């Protein structure tokens, strides 16, 4: 009887302990602040993240690893994609070495916890910037690197031409995404009943669609194009014209880490700014002698903007030298020379009718 009572006690306590332990370790930041127990821990933590990355000599970057053009592991074992290049740009700015990145594959469910607990320094994983994620999930977003919208893919021979044709049909969705909510919102708004078949794993989601269990599959338009290329018969599928939401995809860092967040933010702006200024990985050397004050400030040959970020003054020059400007990154991963062949569209510079705009480097 006593044994039973003891077991009951342990049973009652154990889950609580595990639950708290599971979420308690914030990359050891609190443990590494001796002398200031409990006194405003936010400040030392901020310094430590930054110091951790620098002393480690490597950025740990959370990516999907399963979306070609965004982040994907090729047959040669190398990562490629626009999300991956953002991480490389950060490594170039910090260490003058675009390969000083350790990539971690995260699914949509793991990603926020990985960032919150400090398992990764940055999340660059086709994640939609939303208000609630910015406020209550403990994330700090960098500028948008890709403006996307949600769409639905169906089989060509299915006679489904619009959302309305999906009435009472099964639609495959991946869980933990804004996609799931957008679909519910849109269908509710239009009074269309449907049957969601929801999976955690992106591969299983697409495999189930490929097997014919679902009449349609929904995801960000870019993801549909990208994953569509690796379906068994890509040409048998078609993406409906209706775009049902706006999905601004942006990298994110953990909240409360202002210095680190600022660095990431201006690395992304650097890519856009370089395109605006016409600086590419090919011609960046020639710009070193430029007399244009805007260019001089940007490349760090004048002023000390980089130091203000805690980086070197030539951080932008490093990024462009190693990774290229936004147009180069886009063309390399999503442009006409790739299988995806996505038009720039709204991901064009503001001066060319798109949405990309960099604040001044001054």
């Amino acid at each position, binding site marked *: 009887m006593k044994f039973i009572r003891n077991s009951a006690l342990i049973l009652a306590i154990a889950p609580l302990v595990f*639950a*708290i332990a599971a*979420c308690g370790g914030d990359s050891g*930041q609190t443990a590494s602040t001796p002398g200031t127990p409990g006194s405003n821990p936010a400040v030392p933590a901020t310094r430590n993240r930054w110091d951790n990355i620098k002393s480690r000599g490597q950025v740990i970057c959370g990516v999907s690893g399963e979306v070609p053009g965004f982040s994907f592991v090729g047959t040669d074992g190398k990562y490629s994609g626009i999300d991956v290049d953002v991480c490389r740009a950060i490594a170039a700015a910090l260490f003058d070495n675009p390969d000083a990145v350790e990539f971690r594959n995260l699914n949509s469910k793991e990603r926020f916890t990985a960032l919150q607990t400090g398992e990764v320094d940055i999340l660059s994983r086709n994640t939609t910037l939303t208000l609630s994620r910015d406020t209550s999930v*403990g994330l700090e977003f960098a500028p948008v690197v890709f403006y996307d919208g949600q769409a639905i893919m169906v089989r060509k021979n299915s006679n489904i031409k619009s959302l309305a044709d999906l009435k009472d049909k099964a639609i495959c969705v991946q869980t*933990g995404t804004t996609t*799931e909510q957008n679909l*519910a919102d849109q269908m*509710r708004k239009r009074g269309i009943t449907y049957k969601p078949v*929801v999976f955690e794993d992106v591969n299983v989601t697409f495999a189930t669609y490929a097997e014919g269990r679902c009449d349609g599959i929904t995801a960000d338009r870019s993801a549909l194009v990208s994953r569509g290329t690796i379906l068994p018969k890509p040409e048998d599928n078609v993406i409906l014209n209706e775009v049902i939401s706006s999905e601004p995809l942006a990298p994110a860092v953990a909240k409360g880490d202002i210095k680190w967040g600022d660095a990431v933010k201006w690395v992304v702006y650097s890519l856009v700014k370089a395109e605006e200024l016409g600086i590419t990985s090919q011609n960046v050397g020639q710009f070193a002698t430029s007399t244009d004050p805007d260019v001089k400030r940007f490349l760090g040959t004048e002023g000390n903007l980089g130091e203000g970020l805690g980086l070197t003054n030539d951080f932008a020059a490093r990024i462009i030298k190693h990774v290229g400007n936004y147009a180069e990154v886009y063309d390399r991963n999503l442009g006409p020379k790739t299988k995806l062949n996505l038009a720039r569209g709204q991901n064009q510079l503001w001066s060319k009718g798109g949405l990309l705009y960099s604040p001044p480097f001054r």
Partner: protein
Amino acid sequence: MTNSIWRDVRFWRIALQLVAVLLAAVVVVILWGNLQRNLRQLGISFGFDFLKQQASFDIGETLISYKPTDTYSHALWVGLINSLRVAIAGIFLTTIVGVSAGIARLSDNWLVRNITMVYVEVFRNTPLLLQLLFWYFAVFLSFPKTGNKISLWGFIGVSQNGLELPWFTLSPEFSALLLGLTFYTGAFIAEIVRGGIQSVPKGQWEAARSLGLKPGLAMRLVIFPQALRVIIPPLTSQYLNLTKNTSLAIAIGYPDIYFVASTTFNQTGKAVEVILLIMLTYLTLSLTISVVMNLFNRSVQIKER
């Protein structure tokens, strides 16, 4: 005289327990403080208010009415009922499969004995997740959507629509999960049943025979009731395993409680709260099954007079 308390066994029994409780409490307090600090750093607050917010995601399969405009707590109820649906049906079916296979393994018929042996060894020695994916992709989804369904005993159809019974259809996700759990757990129960029957002394068989009972009747009236005493405690464990394993539904898209909770956690970012809720749910389910099975166990024990 003053030292006597230190030599008292009763004192030590109580004192050690107090120390254990105290230690546990200290650990909880430290971890709780750490959690609070970390959450504050990230600007996240702890609390269950999010349960009253609108869930705004749809659930494919529900037994009670549900709309995306309902709250997270309602969505979680839907998930819990879906879990219970699989668990109860699973416990029922797996008992039939397990007991039949357990008895069949002791059959005098060579074919029956060896077929069940192959079943038990194959299902017991491969991972459940693999089996679920097998049932889902290789069994249900490999059929064309309409027609061409496989017919079992004339009234059960197996197709991409799931299990088609004359009066209703079970979705492929539910069917794959149910059959996966049933046959996996059934293999373990078969071994338990076999062990239980073999634990009954041979003399009982002989005694039953000498009374003129045929083997079938001897098994039902004499051997099996005695074997139950050995079978029920490990059987309880298998029921608990089956219930907890329903959470693997997430791999094949069946919206159980764990699945709905994951989505909730993902949308709200309330990791700690949601994990506490999940733990509480499974703990409650497990303790309930234990209590029921213990009562049943007591009823089949030999009452000494």
